[in-house]
């Protein structure tokens, strides 16, 4: 699984980085910088939680 952001929808709420800090950081304006790599299975639950929590539904989970 990978995680991607739709940058048009993203409003820099920053919840994703709080919920999934192993994979998502924030730039100086609060927008996510996401690791572009396959998420290990043990972290997939965190990825799902981050995607579900996004207020603008900007995060996409992609199957590898």
């Amino acid at each position, binding site marked *: 699984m990978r995680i991607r952001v739709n*940058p048009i929808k993203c409003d820099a709420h920053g919840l994703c980085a709080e919920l999934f800090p192993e994979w998502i950081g924030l*730039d100086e304006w609060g*927008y996510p910088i996401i690791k572009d790599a396959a998420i290990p299975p043990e972290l997939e639950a965190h990825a799902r939680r981050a995607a579900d929590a996004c207020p603008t539904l900007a995060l996409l989970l992609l199957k590898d």
Partner: protein
Amino acid sequence: MSAAPEIAVLPRLLSGVSHRGTAQLERHLDEHGPLPAPAELSAKTLLAAVEAAGLRGRGGAGFPAALKMRAVRSARGQAIVVANGCESEPMSAKDALLLRELPHLVLDGAALAARVVGAEQVIVAYEGQNADTQVSLAHAIRQRRAAGTDTVAFELFAAAEKFLTGQETSLLSQLGGGPPVPSFIPPRPTERGVRRRPTLVQNVETLAHLALIARHGSGWYRALGSDDEPGSTLVTLAGAVGSPGVYEIELGTRLEALLEAAGGPTGQIAGLLVGGYFGSWLPAALAGELELSNGWLRAHDAALGCGVVVALPASACPVAETVRVAVYLATETARQCGPCVHGSAALARTLHGMALGRPEAGAFAALRRWTTSLPGRGACHLPDGLSHFVATALATFPRQFEDHARGGPCERCGAAPLLEIPA
């Protein structure tokens, strides 16, 4: 690169320009012969020829034309073709030249592309500010209608005058009545584009090549260039050369040969911009070995892109030129994606301060950070292009940037701008 055989001659696309008047259907047919009828050249055979030719898109991204066509063919629904003539790259003139001087070559290619994907309708998009393009295209379409040349219906579309106007999804947004702003992918235009139908968007130069591949075959196309990068391509040459303008070159041509064909350098060169405003600055010292192929350029972190080549004269200031373009690109953001809105403004502001001799604290480190962290984080490639343009400028002209940061504007900063910024 190995020496190319001398059997194929240039120009191909531009052969009609030299004796003028190929905007007329009759002259076009004299020059190139008729379009092969569907009975002689089926969609499948044509697609196989495009694939065998190895034709790549000439809009900048260089995507294989056959792959895109296949994707549209295999998508559900009646396909539609968009001939994209909105180069919107201020230094590029090749697409406007094709539409103005050789509209029939482009329309032939668009009709053939429609044959491949089973479309009945072609939209030809041009930059709305170019009135002469509209006149030439409308005239060409009327002539074809009178002669019964096509089974497809052509429609003209005047696109907005913005840097992002020709970006594929931005153009599709306009065709749907929306603003000239990109959209997020997926969905891919090949699956859902104009009127939610599978849409083949091809640059007009790509279509012009298709018109000739259909007539002469893939072997003819591949007689120029290398195995990896076959064929010819259009470049727009600007800057310190005797005769700037649009040239058709064999892929892999040495820059020196192109400069020579264009009347030679008019003076000392400070640096080279290859690929336009989404392209790369390269040091003048590379001019002697520079090959106009993506293979050679890739090894130097560059690409042909839209085919713009600028020889920056030593009388120009690379810092001033870079800052002007960076500010322009930052103002052309569609203002949709946070990293682009904030990042492009930060890049432009920081460069501007540096050029004036008032650099922000940690300016160089910040520029390095942004140019590496912004790419890939917008819906379109504006942050990527701008970042690369700035990063290669800093790498190519380090001393000039440091001198400006320390001492402010140089005596060349006031020279007339070379890199064009639309009003």
